[in-house]
């Protein structure tokens, strides 16, 4: 049994109550999962709303990925609460001025939206299964049809309208949702490292690149598993998307850091000491160097040279993995890093992550991978493959 409270070692002057880290690795996992949701949904919307036809092979997958990750978004939060059984207090009596209370509504609304959009997208498939199957699963599909097997052109026209409307609402919802996560940190005036107007936008763009990267990796992996050829056009489409957004993400994060340094408000000395000391490797090397600049340059090179074939698949997959890692490091550096710089502006703390336990590394890894398990189940129930029997609209 590990001690109930972990006290953090510190240097310099920190407030006594700061020696306990209140937001652990789980709170870094949570915006990471939210980001993957928003990013994956972006891909789905690029296809559904903006007509990026080359993304069709991953469009349904994007929806399912978004849903599976969104369902797990509340888990790190619930595990972290002192009274998880009271979690609904924040929805029964939401405090309007609290970013966190409003987040609950955005998140719930978004889950509902994802389920609805998925339902419409898969309705022809659900109806077909309901008519074909007689087993327990058949019952499940029949329940989902809501008792209507109508897949006439008249009905499908309605469905398409709904899908379009939901996707249109979904874009601001997804991005609002994730921008809002950034606002939860950016709106706190207690910490110089968090308190920034750029925070929501930074979170949003890193979310997009992480989600798109996740889809790129999942797409390549599922193609290999199903032993089918990777659609290079689709992969290239994903690569362009990553490339375009990573540029914005890099610029924003660079600006954010430049702002802190240039404004040089009270406590900046400690921040400089921190970023050139304990944060040097996680921030500059891992998050920026390896995680963002490397894939950016590599993707630029491949786009410039028109790389194709196996080199493109390997290149994009590795770049996507690096981006996924970079974005996690970004979450870590914000959530944990913010708390490692004392509110006094005169001291630094250091967070030590336990491996086991409710808020340990194992739990963090498990929660990050769990959505993939759910995604596997969902792909069995609702195959997202566009090359298989046509089931979706259009």
């Amino acid at each position: 049994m590990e001690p109930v409270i972990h006290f953090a070692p510190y240097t310099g002057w920190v407030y006594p109550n700061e020696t306990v880290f209140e937001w652990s690795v789980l709170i870094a996992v949570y915006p990471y999962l939210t980001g993957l949701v928003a990013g994956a949904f972006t891909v789905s919307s690029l296809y559904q709303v903006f007509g990026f036809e080359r993304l069709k092979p991953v469009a349904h997958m994007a929806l399912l990925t978004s849903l599976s990750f969104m369902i797990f978004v509340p888990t790190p939060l619930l595990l972290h609460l002192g009274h998880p059984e009271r979690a609904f207090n924040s929805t029964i009596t939401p405090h309007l001025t609290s970013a966190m209370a409003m987040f609950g509504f955005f998140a719930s609304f978004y889950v509902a939206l994802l389920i609805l959009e998925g339902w419409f997208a898969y309705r022809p498939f659900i109806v077909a299964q309901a008519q074909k199957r007689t087993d327990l699963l058949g019952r499940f599909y029949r329940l989902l049809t809501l008792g209507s097997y109508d897949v006439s052109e008249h009905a499908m026209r309605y469905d398409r309208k709904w899908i379009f409307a939901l996707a249109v609402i979904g874009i601001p919802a997804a991005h609002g949702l994730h921008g809002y996560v950034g606002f939860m940190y950016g709106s706190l005036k207690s910490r110089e490292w968090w308190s920034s107007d750029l925070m929501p936008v930074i979170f949003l763009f890193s979310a997009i690149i992480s989600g798109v990267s996740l889809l790129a990796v999942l797409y390549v992996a599922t193609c290999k598993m199903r032993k089918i050829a990777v659609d290079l056009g689709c992969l290239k489409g994903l690569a362009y998307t990553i490339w375009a957004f990573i540029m914005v993400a890099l610029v924003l994060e660079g600006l954010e850091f430049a702002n802190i340094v240039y404004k040089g408000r009270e406590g900046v000395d400690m921040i400089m000491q921190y970023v050139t000391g304990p944060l040097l490797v996680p921030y500059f090397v891992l998050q920026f160097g390896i995680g963002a600049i490397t894939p950016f340059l590599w993707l630029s090179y491949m786009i410039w040279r028109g790389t194709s074939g196996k080199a493109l698949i390997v290149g994009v997959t590795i770049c996507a993995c690096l981006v996924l890692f970079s974005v996690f490091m970004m979450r870590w550096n914000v959530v944990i890093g913010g708390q490692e710089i004392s509110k006094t502006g005169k001291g630094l703390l250091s967070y030590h992550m336990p491996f086991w336990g409710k808020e340990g590394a194992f739990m963090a890894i498990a929660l990050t991978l769990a959505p993939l398990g759910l995604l596997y189940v969902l792909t069995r129930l609702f195959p997202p493959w566009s090359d298989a029997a046509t089931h979706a609209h259009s």
Partner: protein
Amino acid sequence: MTKESKPTLAARRAFLTKLGGAATCAAAGAAALAAIPGASAKTEPAADGAAFPTKDYDWTKHQWGFGVDATKCIGCLRCVEACKRENDVPANAHQFRTWVERYVHLEGDDEVHIDSQQDPVNIEASGSEKTFRFANRYKDAKVYKAFFVPKLCNHCTHPACVQVCPTGATYRTEDGVVLIDHGYCIGCRYCVQACPYGARYFNEEQGVSDKCTWCYHRITKGLQPACVEVCPVGARIFGDQRDKESPISLFIRNNRVQVLRPETGNAPNVFYVGIDKEVN
């Protein structure tokens, strides 16, 4: 933030009822809600017309304030120990409702040395994590300037902690005290993060946030907060700002007082005298 006009609040509430209901139930279903014990706990409403919050105390008649005269503080830490005992604060050297900071400038050293009772050197001097004393660590050093500063929750007029609480488990009372409803707090610790003064901590055993209440259970019975009660040198001053002859009113009137981190806009209600530029 604290005083919203009634129609606005009602309108927002109505809107929230719809939006909140929709989202909540889409996500989990109303049945699950009903099963939440904490959420459905009912409490007896207080009888109308009687004084609130107790029959002998009417909170509309007071506006509390706290003063700290750092020039008087001797760093004996009796306040810290009394607070821990009075309020059942965890008996460790890491979580406090009130604490005392020591600022020391040494000759020929630009850097100010700051420590508090939780510093390992001071814990070694006290001999336990349950009792506190400042080690005489600068006894043989050439001290240019040194002083002690007691700290506690500032009971801000615009508290950042109340602003971020998602449930309404922390609030500012009519008599100017920021309290935490331990029966309603979900333990998200957003408030702990939001407080610029480090005044809040998380009580692991109870699973809720905690902080100074100005001993609300004492001041509503006509007593002083425990830290004020035990301070042997009168470095802590407490009283009703409505009463122009109260200790706190006189303290504010007769001194040039300042507050910590005014730039946050939190508008603290703990007033300091005799602190230096480094204190925040």
